């Protein structure tokens, strides 16, 4: 094999790593982000619960951006961070609700749906770009829940005419559906 051919072989085989920083740099960068976040949060006026939530959010958000490792462990850590953030967010919001009115519950459902789906798409490319029947059905179910929750929210907060409420609800639900449907990677 000639030198030119050998060079081509290396580049084509390790196709993505040629574009990314070395793994050590990725890990160091991620560690720096976590350390800076910790220091900033330590001196912030937020409650302990909010500090934990903010830390987890930063850790989950920056993990897929900085750490470009592919494989079972890296993928499982990303989903683990996502699940941890969403569980803490749910717990935090539940403790913050003073009165469980329909409006508050509707807002909670919508927030959990939007942040849950968006964060999951952010951490998992397979789920973001995957186009199979199960994901389409899941998206349809999520949109139906969003539609119901948004209707309750609009009725509770704005007390508009039912037709107008349904119209705004349908428009927002359509936006939600467009945002969560599986995307094309290229």
């Amino acid at each position, binding site marked *: 094999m000639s030198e030119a*051919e050998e060079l*081509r*072989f290396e*580049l*084509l*085989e*390790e*196709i*993505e790593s*040629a*574009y*990314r920083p*070395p*793994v*050590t740099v990725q890990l160091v960068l991620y560690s720096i982000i976590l350390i800076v976040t910790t220091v900033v949060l330590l001196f912030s006026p937020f409650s*302990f*619960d909010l500090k*934990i939530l903010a830390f987890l959010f930063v850790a989950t958000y920056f993990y897929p*951006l*900085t750490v470009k490792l*592919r494989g*079972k462990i890296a*993928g*499982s*850590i990303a*989903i*683990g961070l*996502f*699940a*941890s953030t*969403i*569980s*803490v967010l749910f*717990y*935090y*919001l539940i403790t*913050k609700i003073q009165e469980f*009115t329909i*409006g*508050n519950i509707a*807002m909670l459902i*919508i*927030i959990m749906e*939007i*942040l849950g789906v*968006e964060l999951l798409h952010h951490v998992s*490319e397979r789920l973001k770009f*995957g*186009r*199979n029947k199960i994901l389409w059905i899941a998206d349809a179910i999520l949109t139906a829940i969003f539609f119901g929750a948004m209707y309750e929210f609009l009725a*509770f*907060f704005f007390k508009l005419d039912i037709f107008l409420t349904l119209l705004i609800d349908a428009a*927002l639900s359509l*936006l939600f559906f*467009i*945002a*969560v449907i599986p995307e*094309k*990677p*290229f």
Partner: protein
Amino acid sequence: MLDIILIALVGFAVGFTLAWLFFVRPDEITLKVLDHLVSRYLDERTFSVDKIAQELGMDKKVVEKAIKKLERAGIVAKIPKRGYFLQDPLVFLSPKDYEKALRLTKDDNILYGAYQAPYKVSLAYIIAQLFVVILAVVFSAFAYFNIFGVGDMVRGFLPENASLELFLLFIIALAIIVADVINNFFRWLTRERYSVIVGFYSGVSYDVSVTDELSGKIPRGAIANVDINVNWIQKLNNFFGGVPVGDVIVYVRGRKTPIVFRSVPYPRELYYVLRSIQLGSLQWRKKHARTLALWRMGWFPFYGYGGRRRR
């Protein structure tokens, strides 16, 4: 204080375990079908499920399932009335556009096919997307800390028993959805408009306008030189984003200005494909077809510490 830490740990453990259990592994049947296709159908020869099942001596339904899996990953494409084609792994086109490319290049071997995505590295596009979310976050911060009386104003608007924190998070969540929709809209508007196709015999075909159908042509022999340029925004995208992009510059004989393909996915690979057809050296294609197909499936290579490949 301890309860929230416990919830965080339990959440992590549950998510990690579920992801670990449902991690998609390369299955033997799909690998067997892929190996067979790569070794016998690389040069765009059509095949049917029946034919592959017969050749491999396997059940038709099992083979069909494996081929569907390969189709979802973009390894094979189904063209109506013609059957399945094995795509080169560097073809990042929709089945519809792949079919169009085959038609317009008279069934040439398509070595590379993708869409230019200049919007991806456009500062205006990035800012427009971030603007909505940043606006919502700033508004929420002003309301939360009651800066300039924004908090009082929001509280005055909300019903008595509504939670302010929940409402502010709700606003941010809606802003994220709006930003996502803007992103999808831009992608839809620009995607599948500016294709770049590299065929083994036909050379480079590309769209010159939004409504074009690959009327731009660079014959194989007309390529004088190829260059690659990755600007700082593209570099940032390649470091932290999803699909790596860059500009590929093609100098054509008899033409003063070069043709620039902006923000094409995997520009280094396009560069090598162009250099290969320029030099007539495509040995790598067959040699590494399997590796590239496995990479496309997301099954290989998995990088270990230090960026080295683990077999």
